[in-house]
């Protein structure tokens, strides 16, 4: 092993040293390099040796490499200006020359032969001796490779080889080894190597000067290659597995029952799954790419949500309202957190759960419980108030004409009697709001109207009022009878009081079908019309307000307010109209009471 560390020469090696300068062999050699310095050292030796031998050189390189080469030639080999003057050193820009020999990025054989062949001929003509050689260095192939045009680079290598069959020259190419760092480069790398007669490895190998060092290096490289191959195979498997998982997860998210979406830092929706789009009724292009704020009903709620995210808070059960395509609103709760990379917000993942139905049920349960509780309270109060009230009412009723009292006392009793009547009326109106909810029962509005009209018959007669009935239906609805009666009493009492000097009270009852009101609920409409004093224009927006009364001490101002409250409670409506006629005013109040139970019968 005495020769183990003996320096070796270029002539007997598998690979040349980094300053390899053999140029007479007419080979097509490729040099791979890690650092520009290694390239320039080898190139300078190659070109410098040729020029010193009186041969000619063509350099087609980048400006940086040309400048570095000139500097290196001056230092180590010769005054390159002499070679330039004699025409033995031809230097061209690689990019510029490439553009001349390619057509739309692809090397053109005719133009290549014409231009590059011409250069070789010109260089040969400038040579000093008969047996002189032309050397060439080109890195146009390297530029094509760097642009990702591996096929074009290989094609250009082939054109150089074809030119070498026609003209004698020694050629060197160079590629930075860093350009072949990926597994998919293996195949084109082999093709490039196949186009060359000799290959100079990068300087990590050629810089080694002894055979043992080189052999060790080969072993190390072999081990690294094996390890890399194994790891690559493993990575490939891991990647496949990850891709499979990713696609499974994407599938799960896409087809999840719950709505999922991703929102970018500018609040734009990046992605939304089928469930969310279906919940809100949008197609993907109507939702994705839009600002999330467009779909939040309440701006302040959205801003609070976003502010939490920006504070890096994880958000659970955040209540919000989202706007659907059809204009309806979905009550949702949102779970969300942001994906942050360092201090950069990448996107947020939002899980959106529809709680509209749950909220509605909660609300109706709450409302039903409240109503039931109020109903119980109302029943107790009604009993506790009505008993003493009846007694006091009866007492004053008796006192107002009592023979043992003088006229003053009887007058006071009359006042008390009227006031007590007022209290009774207010108590009844107020308690109407909180009757026991129980279950609604089938009620015939015709029977209720008949009874109420009968109750007011005496009063109507006294005021000279003619009652007209236009009743074409039993008017069956599902309702609370006391409430229905309350509404009709209020409206008929108002109508009678509006006609102190007589008039006509017209009461009509009509069934309203779906055909008459497409898209609306069917029901029954009761209309009470009088020819009384009318409703002044400036009172019209006040008549449904509580405590608004035009009857001075006689009215409580609660009747219409209570009636409207009851009607609205079961989804109906009260409308009125008051217009001047030839003889006075015609005022109509129409009450619509909906019913879906069209086939019910009277209880």
């Amino acid at each position, binding site marked *: 092993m005495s020769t183990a560390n003996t320096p070796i020469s270029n002539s007997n090696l598998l690979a040349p040293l980094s300053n390899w300068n053999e140029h007479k062999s007419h080979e097509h050699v490729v040099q791979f390099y890690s650092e520009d310095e290694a390239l320039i050292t080898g190139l300078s030796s190659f070109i410098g040796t040729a020029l010193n031998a009186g041969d000619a050189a063509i350099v087609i390189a980048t400006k940086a490499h040309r400048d570095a080469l000139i500097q290196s030639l001056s230092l180590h080999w010769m005054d390159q200006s002499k070679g330039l003057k004699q025409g033995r050193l031809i230097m061209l820009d690689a990019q510029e020359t490439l553009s001349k020999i390619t057509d739309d990025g692809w090397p053109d054989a005719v133009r290549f032969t014409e231009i590059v062949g011409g250069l070789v001929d010109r260089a040969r003509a400038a040579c000093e001796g008969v047996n002189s050689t032309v050397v060439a260095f080109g890195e146009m192939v390297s530029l094509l490779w760097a642009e990702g045009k591996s096929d074009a680079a290989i094609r250009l290598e082939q054109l150089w080889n074809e030119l070498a069959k026609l003209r004698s020259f020694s050629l060197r190419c160079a590629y930075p080894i860093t350009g072949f760092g990926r597994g998919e480069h293996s195949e084109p790398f082999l093709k490039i190597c196949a186009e060359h007669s000799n290959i100079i490895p990068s300087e990590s190998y050629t810089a080694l000067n002894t055979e043992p060092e080189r052999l060790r290096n080969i072993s190390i490289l072999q081990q690294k290659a094996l390890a890399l191959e194994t790891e690559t195979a493993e990575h490939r498997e891991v990647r496949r597995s990850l891709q499979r998982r990713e696609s499974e997860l994407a599938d799960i998210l896409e087809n999840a029952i719950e709505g999922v979406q991703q929102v970018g830092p500018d609040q734009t929706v990046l992605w939304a799954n089928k469930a969310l789009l279906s919940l809100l009724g949008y197609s993907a292009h109507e939702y994705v790419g839009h600002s999330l704020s467009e779909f939040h009903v309440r701006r302040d709620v959205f801003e609070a949500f976003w502010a939490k995210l920006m504070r890096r808070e994880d958000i659970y059960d955040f209540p919000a309202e989202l706007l659907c395509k059809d204009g309806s609103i979905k009550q949702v709760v949102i779970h969300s957190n942001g994906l942050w990379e360092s201090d950069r917000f990448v996107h947020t993942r939002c899980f959106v759960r529809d709680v509209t139905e749950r909220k509605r049920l909660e609300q109706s349960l709450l409302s039903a419980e409240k109503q039931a509780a109020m109903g119980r309270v109302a*029943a107790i109060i009604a009993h506790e108030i009505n*008993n003493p009230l009846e*007694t006091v009412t009866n007492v004053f009723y008796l006192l107002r004409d009592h023979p043992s009292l003088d006229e003053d006392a009887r007058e006071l009793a009359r006042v008390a009697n009227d006031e007590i009547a007022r209290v009774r009326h207010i108590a009844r109106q107020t308690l109407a709001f909180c009757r*026991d909810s*129980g279950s609604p029962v089938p009620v015939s509005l015709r029977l209720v109207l008949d009874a109420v009209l*009968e109750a007011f018959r005496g*009063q109507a007669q006294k005021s000279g009022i003619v009652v007209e009935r236009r009743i074409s239906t039993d008017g069956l609805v599902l309702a609370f009878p006391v409430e229905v009666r309350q509404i009709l009493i209020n409206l008929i009492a108002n109508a009678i009081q509006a006609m102190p000097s007589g008039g006509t009270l017209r009461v009509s009852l009509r069934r309203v079908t779906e055909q008459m009101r497409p898209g609306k609920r069917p029901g029954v409409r009761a209309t009470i019309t009088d020819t009384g004093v009318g409703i002044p224009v400036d009172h019209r927006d006040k008549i449904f307000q509580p405590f608004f009364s035009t009857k001075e001490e006689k009215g409580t101002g609660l009747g219409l307010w209570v009636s409207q409250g009851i009607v609205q409670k079961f989804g109906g409506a009260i409308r009125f109209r008051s217009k001047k006629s030839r003889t006075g005013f015609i005022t109509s109040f129409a009450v619509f009471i909906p019913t879906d139970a069209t086939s019910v019968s009277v209880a």
Partner: protein
Amino acid sequence: MRRVFPLHNSRTSAAVGTETNRNAKGVSILCIDDEKSGVEVRKRLLESAGYRVTTARSGQEGIQQLRSEPFDMVLLDYWMPSFNGVATARELRSIDPAVPIMILSGLSQLPDETIGVVDRWILKDEGPEYLLAAISSLLKSRH
């Protein structure tokens, strides 16, 4: 418990009037209510309209009264301790199937069973004129 509007089940219709019933003279009414002042004042109200009134302070007492003498009508409170208006009405009906029974209640709704047993029920907050008119109307319908 299903509840219905009293007017649906009334066997008569009431007419409201304020004049004293000319036919009230000599008509006997049994008035049953546990509220002492309430029943006393009601007695005087009915007497002022010309009726002859006997009071009872409980369902049981009222039943005893009807057993011992006939009445033209019974006016009965619904909400009484131990023996309520419905139970009392049933018992009264078994003694005298023809006697008109009117039930008086502070509640705005009553169970079906009550409506089925009595001839008419009215609310206490209707006022004295209405009560008198309803009694007169019920009596008229029976004669």
